[in-house]
């Protein structure tokens, strides 16, 4: 394995408040890594820095050996809300980066097949349920075949059953596209089930990290995952953030 992403942020402030404090993170290609922590611990800020959406910091972001100075087509982003453009069809949303002229790109339909939405390619977003809309957002995030996909609490707005199905879908797609995932989540179970590594954050720093060695496909109720989840909670409790 080789390092795909290298992030080092000595300090990131919002006014007087320090949100990130000497934060470093390295991701190997093909890894699935989650950032967990209480609200305000800096995890979403870190994701925005990696995405190139927040450039007001003194850190460095290196992707595949190349320093990043802004947004990049090699980094896909999936937000908490689907953020579909309501005036574009499902297919046009997925192929947004290719502009309207190339929205009939066969790649769009392959991606829609993969997320199980090829039947609604020509539908407008208003006709979709929350789960369906988030699947469209996943397909759009993968359109440029980015080696790294960032996900900011992508399933927090859907019901528990849909969340499980979307987690399975994300995992399958990441494996098929050989995509590295960096996921921000509040959901400790989600982090444990999806990830190879869980970075536990508090006060803008890495408190600790938990490596999940359980083989895939994983059983959500397996003792190893329960143990990993308990370990994450212990770290958070130990840092008095729970």
């Amino acid at each position, binding site marked *: 394995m080789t390092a795909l992403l290298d992030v080092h942020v000595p300090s990131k402030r919002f006014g007087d408040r320090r949100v990130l404090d000497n934060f470093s993170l390295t991701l190997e290609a093909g890894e699935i890594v989650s950032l967990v922590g209480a609200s305000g611990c800096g995890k979403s800020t870190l994701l925005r820095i990696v*995405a190139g*959406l927040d450039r007001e910091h003194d850190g460095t972001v290196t992707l595949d050996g190349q320093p990043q100075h*802004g*947004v990049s*087509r090699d980094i896909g*982003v999936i*937000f908490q*809300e689907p*953020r579909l*453009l*309501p*005036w*574009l069809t499902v297919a046009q949303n997925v192929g*947004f*980066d290719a*502009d309207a002229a190339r929205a009939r790109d066969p790649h769009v339909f392959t991606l829609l*097949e*993969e*997320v*199980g*939405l090829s*039947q*609604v390619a020509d*539908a*407008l*977003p*208003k*006709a*979709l*349920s929350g789960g*369906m809309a988030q*699947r469209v957002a996943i397909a759009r995030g993968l359109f440029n075949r980015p080696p790294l996909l960032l996900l900011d609490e992508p399933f927090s707005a859907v019901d528990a059953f849909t969340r499980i*199905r979307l987690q*399975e*879908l994300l995992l*399958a*797609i990441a494996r*098929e596209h050989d995509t590295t995932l960096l996921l921000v989540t509040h959901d400790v179970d989600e982090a444990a089930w999806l990830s190879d590594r869980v970075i536990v954050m508090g006060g803008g720093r890495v408190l600790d990290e938990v490596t999940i060695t359980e083989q895939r496909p994983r059983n959500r109720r397996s003792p190893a995952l329960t143990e990993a989840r308990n370990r994450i909670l212990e770290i958070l409790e130990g840092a008095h953030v729970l």
Partner: protein
Amino acid sequence: MNTAARTSSLQATVSSARPAVPAGRAGRPHPALGWVLPVLTLLAFEALVRSGVLAAHLFPAPSEIVRTLFDLGSGLASHIGVSLARVAGGFAIGASLAVIAAVVVGLDRRAEALLDPTFQALRAVPSLAWVPLLLLWLGIDETPKITLIAIGAFFPVYLNLLSGLRNVDRKLVELGEVYGLSRTALVRRILLPASLPSLYTGLRVGLSLAWMFLVAAELIAATRGLGYLLTDGRETSRPDIVLAAILLLAVLGKVSDSVLKSLEKRALVWRDALETRLG
């Protein structure tokens, strides 16, 4: 395992994704409902004039107004044609300039600081106040009339589009940033489509003001047009001509608004709002 196979169970149809719009208590109202009030008013007017309650030389009966419309014949078509052309020209110019101004002011704080206070001050000037100035500057032909109508159409389009641009969801703008859109692409692909509902509101208000400013323009220094008919009716003591012109302005205003409304409905079919759900 193939993801397509894994997700086959996720295949869903759109129809069940959202509940149907709850129908109103009486369902969709009949389109003829809008005719009830005007028809009843005209019938009452006719009865009051014929029974002598209202003086016929001041309040001509609706049937008399219809006869006047027929008597005006081909001359009437010419008046209507001239007024329509003035409104169309003035509205097109005013609305186009307003779109450009709103985009410039909406995207650039310096342009806003420079231009917006002036626009806000000019907006407060009543339509008739422009007339003498435009006549002095531009003469008495078509130019001052079309300019006045363009001024009337400009401000509602400018204000509504500016407000629409300012209220575009920040999250959609951020999506544009993720895709590295240039400023022009951001305007074309996100800001303008997202502001389309506000733009249409502005266009509809602008069009109704264009008709109002048309009358202001034609009341003075015109020899043709519906505004001229109003002046002509007053000067020749013909209330039937005045009322015929008013009736035509109402009909033309309503028809042009309906055209714009149907364009709006078609363009905003994507909107998930009560307006589009009521159909």
